[in-house]
């Protein structure tokens, strides 16, 4: 824990020095203000996972392909596995997060007239004694629930799906290499 405090101290030091070097800014463009507002309203954990997955596809395979410290075959295989892992991880990650949040929204309602008892099975008793932010509680419970679900899906879905896709992509890379060699031979003849 001591290390965490030290890291926290350095992070706040760095953020403070960045902060002090940035001038005051005001946003006058209504389109930008609306855009920022839209992001805050529509991007939550599942969408965040999709954005991370899409941007990972645009960066990680290329970082693997340009890793000059390993031989060409390892580079290509590693890029193929990275693409497979991103596709498998993003698909399951998005679905797990989305349905966990949906389940918590359904089962953690504030007890009042018209709300059925089964709709409050995940609502804490503290909600009666003054839990100020039910949204934060739902977020925390959602994170814990999706973590448990992912412990299962990581082994049962992610890993085999990644293996399947990796082998598919490796085959494609090999077939393309063979095709390229054949084309070269034909051109030389």
């Amino acid at each position, binding site marked *: 824990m001591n290390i*965490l405090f030290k*890291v926290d101290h350095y*992070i*706040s030091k*760095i*953020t403070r020095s*960045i*902060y002090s070097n*940035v001038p*005051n*800014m*005001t*946003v*006058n463009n209504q389109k930008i*203000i609306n*855009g*920022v*507002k839209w*992001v*805050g*309203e529509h*991007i939550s954990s599942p969408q*965040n996972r999709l*954005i*991370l997955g899409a*941007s990972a596809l*645009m*960066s*990680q395979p290329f*970082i*693997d392909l340009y*890793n000059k*410290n*390993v*031989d060409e*075959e*390892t580079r290509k*295989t*590693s890029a193929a596995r990275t693409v497979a892992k991103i596709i498998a991880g993003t698909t399951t990650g998005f679905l797990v997060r989305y349905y966990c949040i949906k389940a918590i929204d359904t089962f953690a309602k504030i007890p009042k007239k018209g709300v059925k008892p089964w709709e409050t099975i*995940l609502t*804490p*008793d*503290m909600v009666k004694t003054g839990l*100020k932010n039910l949204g*934060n509680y739902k*977020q*925390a*419970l959602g*994170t*814990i629930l999706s*973590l448990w679900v*992912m*412990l299962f899906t*990581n082994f049962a879905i*992610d*890993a085999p799906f*990644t*293996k399947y896709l*990796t*082998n598919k992509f490796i085959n494609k890379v090999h077939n393309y290499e063979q095709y390229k060699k054949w084309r070269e031979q034909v051109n030389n003849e």
Partner: protein
Amino acid sequence: MNKSLLNIIAKKFGKDPGKMLIHTGVIGWGMSAAAQICAIVFNDKLKPEQKMFMIPQEFADAMVNIVSFYVITRGFSTLGATFVRTGRLIPKNISNYIKKIGFGKQIGKIDFNINKHVKMPKNIKAEYNDFKKGIEVSSTIIGSILSCNIITPIVRNLYASKRQEQNIAKLNIKKNTQKANIASYTNYIYPTMQTFQNNASLKI
């Protein structure tokens, strides 16, 4: 359903769910890496040298992700939230309103907290909160992309390449030692057999 467990979660993390992200992140990334390492180990299509790169790559992926998430992603979201909290980055109409009620000189000071120190009409407060949430989410996304998709893959590849190099070197030493042992064994056995054949009374 056990309500006492739900109450503990509400009490511990209800105020700040960000507190638990580090714990869940460590478990989540760790388990994901373990599953992926199993997938690499049991994949017959991958060559042993490639596995020597990919297993440390996956291990480093989890480790670096945890650290870079804690340092970079959290740093970015803290910075984004601070910019809006102190008024360093806010919409112009809100800035004008703050100046109008006499807090103009406070804008941008690190200990200034708009939500705490400025009383705003409902519509301006709603606009400010929406903008704050949007900036927080955007800065977290930018931080995550930078840490998970750029810094982590570069660092994990550097680590995995080094490990692969070391493991291949170890493997080569082992192979060479085995070869040398076999060679010395044959060298040793050959003259003995010859001697035995030549000198023993029973000729084979």
